[in-house]
């Protein structure tokens, strides 16, 4: 009995426990099945999304920046391939070690080290920091070769802005630079390493048009981030081309002609107001700004007394001197206070109270009418008629001719100049207007100032029969800008204009005109104009008695500014020019020959010919690989 029991017991216990164990297994398996159901059915959508996120990486494709071309399609701002290297901080164990390793391959300055470290601290660790750009092909190849020893360093071929004619158009085009911290947050495009935005000039004003549209590509990547294949691509759209009204050949010629001086030349199409040349020398090289200009270079630009950073053509405000006499003459004629045959005797000086006003010609011009007065630039005559017409009407005419307000141009620092009036003086200085100040204004001295651009516009408005053309710098309209406004008439009588223009013609064509030496003899290209010499310092009585020093004897900073405005051809005016040479001495000697050469060049080359319609396109530089954002 006990034996039998034992045997039955053993099998019974075994089978009961085997059943329990099987049940236990079943329990565990149903746990597995439940888990699979949870993962693969209930949560499947979420995990599918996560798998896609793993697999697909969206990379931004930077658009090429639009070109900037002149009116004939010559490229002034382009793009070129740029070999560079980024550092992705999160992909390296030690930024310092990597930089040390890198600096054994390519030179990295102390400044570079600091800049990179600052950027690494400032931005998120997965965003690339540019460690080197503008690399030579050799350096680029060496970085590629050494890349296993350079964790986190990513060589890349991108594009960078390039100005083939650098300084010649620097003041117009401006330059590009890295976007500021505050801008970067808004636009993923701006987070691309090496992406530049317009920082000055046309580059800045037309930035939205030039920037283009970013493309993107979806790529499949594996676990270590290597691209397996491209899934989808939307190409970037290059920014649109911006066309300037400038004739680059004329611009270059004018800049060459001014070389060595500090000054500006402006050429305007009198019919349309299109600016054909806008030159300010000396200038800077905008290519230097692409990567951030070096301190020393920047300091030397700032310290230069010829102010290369300033666009003198629009920002330089000078007393117009005798070039203002046309405005005074027109004011007097239009007011009816004189007739064209009004005569004034010049004996070299004229008294007002206990002040003596001098003519530039000490011995005097004798008796002159208006045409003669312009031809000889007689100061006494203009004291007389300024006194007759009064400062208010002179100021009003100056404004009608475009002085005293800033033209609307897509470049920075366009100055307004100053057209004074008694009201202005009382308001700003608390002192009443003096009669003598009207006399001084009559010869374009005193408070009145104008920019070279304004002088060119004034000349153009006189030359075109008093149509209120406005200066235009771009053929491409600014976004939202209305175009093709026919210039309004200024309502200045033909007779008055004819007298003034006759005077201007005599300046350069009459043997005794002030700029006869700078006349144009070529048939059909004759130039009319007006010289001007603006005093930088008032000549004191003591100096005058001691004998006025010649400009050449004075230090450069104290010499007079030399001015000339002119237009041509005389018969059918098309081009107006204004030249200002800072501390250049006399207008007739320094400014007039430059104006003549530039104007002749414009007329011969037909600079004002219609702008070309078909604009060049930027050839694709390199296949863009895109950058993770």
């Amino acid at each position, binding site marked *: 009995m006990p034996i039998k029991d034992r045997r039955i017991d053993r099998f019974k216990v075994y089978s009961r426990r*085997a059943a329990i164990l099987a049940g236990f297994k079943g329990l565990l398996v149903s746990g597995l099945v439940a888990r699979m159901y949870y*993962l693969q059915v209930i949560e*499947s959508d979420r995990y599918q999304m996560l*798998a896609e996120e793993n697999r697909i990486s969206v990379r931004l494709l930077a658009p090429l920046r639009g070109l900037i071309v002149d009116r004939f399609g010559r490229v002034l701002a382009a793009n070129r391939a740029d070999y560079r290297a980024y550092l992705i901080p999160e992909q390296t164990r030690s930024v310092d070690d990597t930089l040390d390793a890198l600096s054994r391959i390519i030179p990295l300055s102390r400044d570079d080290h600091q800049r990179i470290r600052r950027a690494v601290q400032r931005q998120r660790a997965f965003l690339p920091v540019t460690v080197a750009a503008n690399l030579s092909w050799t350096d680029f190849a060496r970085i590629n070769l050494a890349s296993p020893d350079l964790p986190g360093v990513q060589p890349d071929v991108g594009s960078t802005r390039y100005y083939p004619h650098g300084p010649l158009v620097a003041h117009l085009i401006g330059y590009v630079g890295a976007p500021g911290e505050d801008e970067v947050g808004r636009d993923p495009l701006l987070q691309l390493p090496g992406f530049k935005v317009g920082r000055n000039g046309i580059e800045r004003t037309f930035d939205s048009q030039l920037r283009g549209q970013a493309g993107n590509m979806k790529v499949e990547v594996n676990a270590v981030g290597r691209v397996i294949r491209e899934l989808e691509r939307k190409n970037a759209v290059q920014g649109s081309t911006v066309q300037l009204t400038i004739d680059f050949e004329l611009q270059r010629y004018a800049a060459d002609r001014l070389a060595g001086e500090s000054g500006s030349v402006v050429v305007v199409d009198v019919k349309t107001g299109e600016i054909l040349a806008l030159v300010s020398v000396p200038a800077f090289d905008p290519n230097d700004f692409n990567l951030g200009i070096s301190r020393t270079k920047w300091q030397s630009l700032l310290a230069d007394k010829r102010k290369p950073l300033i666009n003198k053509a629009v920002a330089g405000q000078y007393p117009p001197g005798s070039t203002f006499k046309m405005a005074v003459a027109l004011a007097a004629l239009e007011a009816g206070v004189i007739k064209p045959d009004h005569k004034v005797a010049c004996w070299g000086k004229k008294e007002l109270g206990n002040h003596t006003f001098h003519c530039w010609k000490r011995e005097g011009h004798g008796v002159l009418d208006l045409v003669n007065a312009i031809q000889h630039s007689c100061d006494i005559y203009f004291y007389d008629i300024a006194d007759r017409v009064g400062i208010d009407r002179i100021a009003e005419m100056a404004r009608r001719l475009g002085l005293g307000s800033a033209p609307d141009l897509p470049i920075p620092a366009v100055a307004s100049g100053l057209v004074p009036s008694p009201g202005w003086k009382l308001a700003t200085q608390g002192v009443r207007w003096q009669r003598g100040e009207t006399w001084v204004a009559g010869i374009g001295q005193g408070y009145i100032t104008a920019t070279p651009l304004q002088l060119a516009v004034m000349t153009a408005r006189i030359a075109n029969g008093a149509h209120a053309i406005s200066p235009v710098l771009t053929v491409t309209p600014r976004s939202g800008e209305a175009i093709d406004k026919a210039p309004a008439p200024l309502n200045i009588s033909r007779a008055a204009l004819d007298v003034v223009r006759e005077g201007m013609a005599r300046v350069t064509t009459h043997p005794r005109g002030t700029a006869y030496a700078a006349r144009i003899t070529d048939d059909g290209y004759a130039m009319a104009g007006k010289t001007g010499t603006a005093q930088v310092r008032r000549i004191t009585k003591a100096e005058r008695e001691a004998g006025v020093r010649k400009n050449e004897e004075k230090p450069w900073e104290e010499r007079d500014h030399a001015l000339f405005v002119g237009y041509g051809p005389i018969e059918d005016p098309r081009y107006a020019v204004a030249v200002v040479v800072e501390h250049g001495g006399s207008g007739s000697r320094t400014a007039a020959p430059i104006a003549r050469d530039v104007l002749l060049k414009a007329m011969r080359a037909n600079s004002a010919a219609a702008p070309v319609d078909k604009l060049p396109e930027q050839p694709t530089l390199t296949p863009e690989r895109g950058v993770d954002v």
Partner: protein
Amino acid sequence: MTEPAISLKGKRGLFTKFGELNWFVVLLITAIACVGFVMLYSVAGGSIEPWASRQMIRFAVGLVLMIAVALTSLRFWVSAAYPIYLGALALLIAVEFIGTTGMGAQRWIDLGFFRLQPSEVMKIALVLALARYYHGITMREAMSLRSLLIPVILIALPAGLVLSQPDLGTALLLILGGAAVMFLAGVRLWLFVAGIISALAAIPVAWGFLKDYQKSRILTFLNPERDPLGAGYHIMQSKIALGSGGVYGKGFLLGTQSQLNFLPEKQTDFIFTMLAEEFGLLGGLGLLTLYGILIGYAILVSLTIRSHFGRLMAMGLAFTFFLYVFINTAMVMGLLPVVGVPLPLVSYGGSAMLTVMIGFGLILSAALHRDAIIPRSGAIT
């Protein structure tokens, strides 16, 4: 009445036995291995090299061994149980001195043509030894506290050695497999309850003995987001792969997580994930069903075995096999920490495959000799 039949069967020829083999089980095992070949083909990005081809050769070798083991008399295995155990123990000790370590755990002895993992041999040897022990004592003895000593030593010795390798996963497999045999043999239930309680109490002490990577694995298991790019990465990626597979899967060779290498160790420990990514819930459940049938067969056949040794061995080995499957799949689903247990018959690797196939060889042998009467002494008469 039954005596003549037994003596008849005892004299069966090898050829007869071969015919009486349970070919359905052999077919089932082959089917599961084929799932492995298919997945290894996919792991290699659609190539039979380098994994699938070698795995096929191993399987062929394993198949021959399995059948040879199955045809061997159960009596032989009874008498060989202790010697095999002692041999395996000796190898475990030897491996401490002459073994080679791979991937931080699981030591092996390089035999030139084959890397012998003593811990794998021990998985079978331990079950054999325990079954042999309980076969030799009465039920009453089995229930007594005194006879607890030898089984505990049988389990503790190899488990301790394996733990020191250090291979936590295998040690746990040994302990659980051994405990299952003890449970089936009739050891009192309260002892298991006490054992579980004392094991839980020992956790804080044991924690101090764990290696850093083991601690990290367990902590990461408890909170995978703790280190999503480090230790938690494997679990996260495995769950993403499974979940994104959905019901029908992404298609053969089209599993993005696996093919793009987001999934780690996919030819070994995470091969189930790959299957479930490419063939979905249906594929995963299909494989689990195959395993279920196999284990179910082992359970049912064990109930028909006349010898206590045969029953305990078949059930013990089937449970070890079950543990393999469960721990591996639960691990890749994020239900258990990553402990490095392969999926039997499917994961790439020779040792585990041979262990499992020899184990099934033994189960088949027990089934083939189900009516054999084996004396307590175990001696061949």
